[in-house]
């Protein structure tokens, strides 16, 4: 068997495995559901995310340690991850292959030639690392937090985060139609355009240049490229037989010039050159190449410094916006278990796993509402999805690979045995009295109170009787027992007999109207007017309303009330992040 075949099988294996992990990421015990599938495996394999997190938090959290394995392999064997494992790379490889099907060899070779723009990915890596270099310095040197923003931006372009995000949030929901296989309901995601645009661009650019993303953009490739300076095994040209044809570059994936001086940092160990060389001159082994090679990427110190400085400057500029202080965005409701904002942003790699697993589809990728530094981080939007945030659910924290959302137990989420802290709160609901039906429009409704899931409920209602406007006042003509004949406005039959309307005559409590015609009203037989109304008495029709009032001490911000509110545009009860457990400064309650 040729080694090329093994490589292809390896790429297919890991890509299918990746797609499998995306498909099973929904809560359930069946074999096609989450169970114990290690769905974060590829995120964990990426040492870029792990490195970023190690710099911003000083820890390597649990599974992220797999990145060390990738690094180890890279130190000794080169960028084998890129050529053999990375599913995103495999997709680019495939599309690149398709793009050259009808091409002649010279054309193929030309498209695989090294291009100076391949250093852009190193700039991208430096910019991303620059965004956290201040954080690192602060921690090592003990500087005060100051106004510099702390945030991990690596997830924006880390290939694994990008791929998980794109497949889970864009491709699978589109393929799945109305939620037939991969989830129980159709999934909707904000920021679909921005995520999808980047993904499709990366795919389509392969038709211009094969492995466009890998060669020009991928910061993980850049990191592995820098770290594969001294691999034990590498591609080398044994001098004797080389005819400089350059047939070896027909299918070179990394555009690394194996026919001349191999650029070690670009080589993805696809071994296509070895396969294509008719003379057997290209080998993969321990020896040094005959013509020498270029171990380091073609970047200068000045470029490195400038890139890092721009990263730092970007963070400084964002820090001035004050979103970590008084200017915090009120509508930024984060998932339950999320750490407070600086710590959250130091860990979130925007992989979208929490959005994928959320059974009610309320976790959404932010566009700009949480600031430029928090693009595609999880934000709850209660208008989307099937329900609010179920208050017994703990799914998001248990799929977050970096613990930006802490894994909770159900007891901690609900506050059982956590007397001092109480249940985890993600915000508080506020009734908009200008929009709420019983407050503003004299229409009965208590859907929010009915659906409040906590016990005792966090919404109570206050009963009020508001008079119904009549064109001409109603006066009693005659009355007996529980029935009255009236003069005045002619009433629409049945309109006031819904059970919510009462009528009142002076000096007595209101009686519920059970039947009503154009000019007659009957009240509840077991509770008639006592004494009966006399002719000439004025009758007032009242509507009984229950006006909802939130009890902030009990509200956990789950958003079911907002979800169920019949005012479906701008809801009459809305959750904002005040009183969220993760940040004591956002509270307005004393205890």
């Amino acid at each position, binding site marked *: *068997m*040729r*080694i090329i*075949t*093994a490589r292809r*099988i*390896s790429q297919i*294996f890991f890509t299918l*495995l990746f797609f499998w992990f995306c498909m099973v990421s929904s*809560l*359930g*015990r069946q*074999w096609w*559901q*989450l*169970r*114990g*599938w*290690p769905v974060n*495996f590829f995120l964990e394999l990426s040492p870029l995310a792990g490195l970023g997190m190690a710099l911003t938090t000083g820890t390597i959290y649990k599974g992220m340690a797999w990145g060390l394995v990738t690094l180890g392999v890279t130190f000794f064997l080169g960028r084998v991850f890129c050529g053999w494992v990375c599913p995103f790379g495999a997709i680019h490889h495939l599309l690149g292959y398709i793009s050259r099907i009808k091409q*002649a*060899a*010279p054309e193929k*070779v*030309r498209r695989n*030639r090294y291009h100076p723009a391949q250093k852009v990915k190193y700039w991208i890596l430096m910019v991303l690392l620059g965004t956290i270099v201040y954080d690192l310095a602060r921690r090592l040197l003990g500087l005060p937090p100051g106004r510099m923003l702390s945030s991990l931006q690596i997830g924006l372009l880390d290939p694994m985060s990008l791929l998980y995000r794109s497949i889970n949030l864009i491709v699978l929901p589109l393929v799945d139609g109305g939620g037939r296989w991969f989830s129980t309901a159709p999934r909707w995601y904000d920021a679909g355009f921005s995520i999808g645009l980047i993904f499709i661009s990366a795919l389509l650019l392969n038709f211009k240049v094969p492995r466009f993303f890998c060669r020009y953009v991928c910061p993980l490739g850049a990191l592995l490229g820098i770290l594969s300076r001294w691999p034990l095994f590498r591609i080398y040209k044994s*001098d004797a037989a*080389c*005819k*400089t*044809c*350059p*047939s070896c*570059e*027909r299918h070179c994936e990394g555009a690394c010039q194996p*026919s*001349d001086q191999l650029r070690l940092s670009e080589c993805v160990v696809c071994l296509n050159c070895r*396969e*294509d*060389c*008719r003379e*057997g001159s290209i080998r993969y082994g321990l020896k040094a190449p005959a*013509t020498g090679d270029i171990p380091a990427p073609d970047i200068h110190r000045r470029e490195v410094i400038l890139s890092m400085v721009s990263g730092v400057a970007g963070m400084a500029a964002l820090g001035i916006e004050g979103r970590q202080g008084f200017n915090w965005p009120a509508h930024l409701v984060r998932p339950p278990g999320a750490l407070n904002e600086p710590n959250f942003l130091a860990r979130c790699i925007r992989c979208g796993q929490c959005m994928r*697993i959320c*059974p009610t589809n309320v976790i959404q990728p932010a566009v700009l509402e949480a600031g430029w530094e928090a693009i595609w981080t999880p934000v709850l939007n209660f208008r989307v999805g099937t329900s609010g945030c179920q208050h*017994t*659910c*703990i*799914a998001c*924290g*248990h*799929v977050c690979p970096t613990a930006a959302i802490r*894994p909770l*137990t*159900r007891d901690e989420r*609900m506050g059982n045995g956590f007397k001092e802290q109480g249940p985890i709160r993600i915000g508080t609901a506020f009734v908009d009295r200008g929009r709420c039906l019983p407050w503003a429009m004299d229409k009965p409704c208590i859907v929010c109170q009915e659906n409040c899931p906590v016990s005792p409920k966090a919404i109570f209602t206050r009963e009020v009787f508001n008079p119904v406007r009549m064109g001409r006042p109603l006066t009693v003509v005659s009355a007996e027992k529980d029935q009255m004949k009236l003069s005045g406005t002619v009433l629409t039959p049945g309109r006031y007999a819904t059970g919510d309307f009462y009528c009142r005559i002076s000096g007595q409590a209101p009686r519920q109207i059970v039947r009503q015609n154009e000019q007659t009203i009957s009240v509840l037989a*077991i*509770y008639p007017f006592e004494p009966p109304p006399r002719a000439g008495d004025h009758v007032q029709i009242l509507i009984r309303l229950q006006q909802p009032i939130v009890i902030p001490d009990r509200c956990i911000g789950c958003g079911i009330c907002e979800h169920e509110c019949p005012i479906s545009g701008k809801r009459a009860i809305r959750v904002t992040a005040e009183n969220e457990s993760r940040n004591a400064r956002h509270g307005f309650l004393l205890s």
Partner: protein
Amino acid sequence: MFPAPDYDNPTSRENAVSATNRQTTKKETILSLLFLAFLGAIFLVILSVQSRFNPAVENFAPKNIGTEASNTNEPADNLSIPLSAGIKTMSSPESFTPDTLSNKINGKAELYLSAGFVQLQAQRFRPIDDPEAWFEVFVYDMGTPSNAFAVYSTQRRKDVEKLPLTQHAYRTANALFFITGRHYVEMIAATRGEVVPPMLIAFAKKYLGHVQEDGQTEADASDPKSVFPTEGLIADSIALIAKDAFGFSRLDQVYTAQYHGPDTEMNLFVSLRPSSKEARTLAEAYRDFLIQFGGTEVTGPESSPLAGLFIIRIMDAHELIFSRGPYLAGVHMADDIAAAGKLAVKMDRKLAEMGIAK
């Protein structure tokens, strides 16, 4: 050194010749296969890892939703009772909802349904060494302890032996009946015999030890029982009719008790209504109902040992009805009008002693 490759004029040979004339070495094949084996190993490890469920999945769809006191009110889908020593299950657990209850207990279903029935779980058990001595356990989830008391008390057999199992428990020759929390439990053995009662009692004790009570104790359920005067009360005769008491749809949650009368027993009933006004209204409504069905009101000196007492003669018996405060009370189907009147007065006095104003 070698000249740099000429990219613009590559040798044209490659189009004509096959892709490679390099031999695939044995080493290459071995390495490739070894690598594939490595991939296989990864696959196997992943397969073994997937059986260790993510805690989020355990939380979302736990294996046993039955016996733990969960925060939701979902009914259990299996009867996970720990077996006492020497007992094994004989059938798989069955579960019935209000719609399917009559499949199991036929006409008796109506009694449970009108009392707030939620779910029935039933299962058969037997001693390991005696297949003939099997018994069936019925666990009725009635929703509230009060409802459980209703179905318990209205079905209580006469002259039975009290069981020191729970506050409300009795046994017959071959069965146990008791209430625990909101559940009414029957354990009925197929045979009679020396060994049956102890076996059932041991099983019941194990069951009670396993079941976690929800907050309400039975004492809450039977609070209205304390208004019954104790003098003349026949022991363990207090029952609760959940709905449609005495054929009148508006009479619900009515407690009845038997009293010793001069010739026969008398039935005293009492029901706690939401307010005094409603009690009074209901008393009048019940009176009207009886009159509607052929009763006649009895007025006169003998009819007023108690102010506001209605006496209706219907079908050769007398119904006495009155209310005090939020309590509606009376005597049901009494033969002896004088004795019934005295009982009604006793009831009224007991209520007054408890501080209930007229």
